[in-house]
């Protein structure tokens, strides 16, 4: 410790930092932690998709063509036409739209606009619920066609495909469901004025990060099972 009379601003600042006067990377602690949780969840999903890659390339000559497996809209009456990948594209757009409305909610939060936040969380929730409904229809349709975790059809050829499909889309669907529950809590909390009381809408951003992560995982699940 120098005996000089001048104050060492570096030391003063570090005292402040140690006492919680700063935040990591100048971002809120909660937000940074949400990002790191999402990275860990990325590794979980990635390990599933990597297992898919390994098993697929071990049987690549006998692997199903997605356009054949997912060839119709799983709604009674609409399933008579051969419309490959149309339904899953609709599901993808549901999540893209819900991501956009979520971003708009975050932006309204940055303006401390309570009504705007709630206004944009509602379509986010509805799109999430619609996505889960679509996933239910897709699952029941495929199961009724004979694709399960133990049986394959003439289109799906190997039981591995069904096993991987249901486990991975199921795990993703569970995340979507969790996100919908979080968003409902968020909308109700915002409407009750909780974040005006706290002084900022960072919670909207944190849950928004989780929701975008769910969308991003779907991009890769969609890619592996439906496009490649």
């Amino acid at each position: 410790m120098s005996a000089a009379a001048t104050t060492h601003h570096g030391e003063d600042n570090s005292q402040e930092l140690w006492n919680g006067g700063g935040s990591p990377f100048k971002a809120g602690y909660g937000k940074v932690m949400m990002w790191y949780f999402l990275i860990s969840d990325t590794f979980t999903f990635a390990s599933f998709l990597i297992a898919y890659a390994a098993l697929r390339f071990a049987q690549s000559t006998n692997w199903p063509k997605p356009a054949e497996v997912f060839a119709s809209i799983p709604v009674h009456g609409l399933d008579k036409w051969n419309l490959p990948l149309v339904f899953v594209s609709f599901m993808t757009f549901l999540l893209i739209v819900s991501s956009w409305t979520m971003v708009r909610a975050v932006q309204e939060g940055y303006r401390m606009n309570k009504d705007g936040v709630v206004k944009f969380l509602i379509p986010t929730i509805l799109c999430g619920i619609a996505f889960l409904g679509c996933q239910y229809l897709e699952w029941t349709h495929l199961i009724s066609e004979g694709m399960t975790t133990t049986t394959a059809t003439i289109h799906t050829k190997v039981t591995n495909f069904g096993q991987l499909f249901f486990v991975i889309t199921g795990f993703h669907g569970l995340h979507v469901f969790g996100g919908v529950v979080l968003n409902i809590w968020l909308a109700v909390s915002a409407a009750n004025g909780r974040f005006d009381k706290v002084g900022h809408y960072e919670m909207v951003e944190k849950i928004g990060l989780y929701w975008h992560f769910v969308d991003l995982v779907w991009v890769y699940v969609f890619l592996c099972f439906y496009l490649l």
Partner: protein
Amino acid sequence: MNFDEPVQGHLHWTEGEYNDSKKEVLKTIVILSVVTIAEVGIAIAYDHFLGKDGSGKWIINLIMAIASVIKVYFIMGTFMHLKHEKKGFILTVFLPFLFLIWAIIAFTVEGSSWMAMRGLLNVF
């Protein structure tokens, strides 16, 4: 619930920042929609462009991989706001993904070698 925590980070925008952000997000969602439509179009039609034995599929895979990278860039960068964070933070998020890239390549090759081994071992 502690409501007395100090506000950390830049959590209140000006009108200008808000409008800029809205424009950026709108541009992003248009790009995402176009890329998705292109991906689906290629996925439906690619059978016509492959060779008799399915050769050339690697080009399709490459196009799909690039399209996914574009989507990741826009969803993480703009929707999740990562582009506007501090560079050190962006690195802490992206560097772990290098492990995943290694893993994807390694296990894809591994899978192919399983198929080859099965062919070799089928003698028994």
